[in-house]
């Protein structure tokens, strides 16, 4: 009887050693990697400041893996807890990166507001320096009540030929729009770009969209919330005049600002 148990015990012992031998190397490597990762996050002061809980959990799991590694036959448990520890280290790192991004974004947001204010002042100044208001006809600023709602047209003279950048002579109009939108916080706008029919359709479409976007960008830069501004480019569609004459084509090259009603209801896009 005693002999039998001895033999059994021996077999058991050999089996255990075998198991340990197989899993041993794998668990050793996992443990090493996990503790290396843990060291890195532990020594990072940002991680410690922002994600201390994750670091603690990484440490706890690592300690557990380490403790288990001194037992026989626990190779898979060691690998498991080493894995958990590594994950916690990675999570700590991600949480830290996220918080750092947010901290920096908050700082930059202040900077952005400062610049926005400066830009507004600069624009006001340049309007004043122009001495006299530009003639309504020259900048072709017109607000008309159409079936699409209130529409303001920015004429072709506000852009250089083929360019999408708004000239500084548009300052007054743009400021007016911004002021109007600030007084009417529920209103939203759709900015629609149009061209004449010279040139190919594709590049007209792009130019019309770029011009509309340029106007939208300035509105946003001057403090209108981005979500209140929609942008559309229609290329050479919907001409207001025949494209036959130079005058007609100039009329068709335009950016229209369509205002919603007081409740923010905007007519459907074309």
């Amino acid at each position, binding site marked *: *009887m*005693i002999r039998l*148990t*001895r033999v*059994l*015990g021996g077999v*058991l012992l050999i089996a255990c050693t075998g198991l340990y031998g197989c899993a041993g190397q794998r668990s050793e490597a996992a443990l090493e990697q996990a503790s290396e990762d843990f060291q890195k996050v532990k020594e990072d002061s940002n991680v410690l400041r922002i994600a201390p809980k994750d670091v603690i959990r990484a440490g706890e799991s690592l300690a557990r893996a380490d403790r288990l590694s001194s037992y026989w036959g626990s190779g*898979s448990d060691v690998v*498991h807890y080493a*894995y*958990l520890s590594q*994950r*916690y280290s*990675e*999570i700590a790192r*991600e*949480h830290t*990166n*996220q918080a750092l*991004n*947010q901290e*920096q*974004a908050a700082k*930059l*947001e202040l*900077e*952005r507001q400062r*610049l*926005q204010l*400066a*830009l507004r002042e*600069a*624009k006001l100044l*340049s309007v004043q320096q122009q001495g006299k208001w530009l003639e309504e006809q020259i900048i072709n600023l017109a607000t008309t009540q159409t079936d699409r709602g209130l529409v303001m047209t920015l004429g072709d003279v506000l852009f250089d030929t083929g360019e999408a950048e708004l000239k*500084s002579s548009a300052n007054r109009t743009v400021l007016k729009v911004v002021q109007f939108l600030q007084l009417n916080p529920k209103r939203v706008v759709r900015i629609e770009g149009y061209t004449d029919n010279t040139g190919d359709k594709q590049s007209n479409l792009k130019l019309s969209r770029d011009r509309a976007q340029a106007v939208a*960008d*300035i509105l*946003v*830069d001057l403090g209108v919330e981005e979500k209140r501004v929609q942008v559309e480019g229609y290329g050479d569609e919907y001409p207001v005049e025949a494209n036959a004459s130079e005058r007609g084509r100039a009329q068709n090259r335009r950016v229209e600002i369509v205002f919603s009603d007081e409740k923010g209801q905007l007519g459907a896009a074309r």
Partner: protein
Amino acid sequence: MSIRPLFAALAVLALAGCAADPAPNEQMRLTEQTLAQAKAVGATAEDVPEMKLAEDKFARAQRNMQEESFKHARMRAEQAELDARLAEARVLTLKSQEQLNLVQTRITRLRKQLGDAQ
């Protein structure tokens, strides 16, 4: 009587003890919740590899539960939980990075315009 058979018996008992893990119901619930949370912030298996790992491991854990292989179920569910948490964190980091880029673009644009205005 020698003390050795006692040891052997103890060892066998200990091994048997290991095999009889309790059903990790709480962990399964927690993992499921974590997966849902990661999905809610927009982590998908296609875009975030950790999310794929999490979903695969959780599915295997559920099979293990049916087979009453509770130890495997617990380990897989635990790993799946952390995989999902990592996936969620990665998505949130990416979003914060995009937000940061947006503010930076706006600042660049403002600076350029300020340069033009002066």
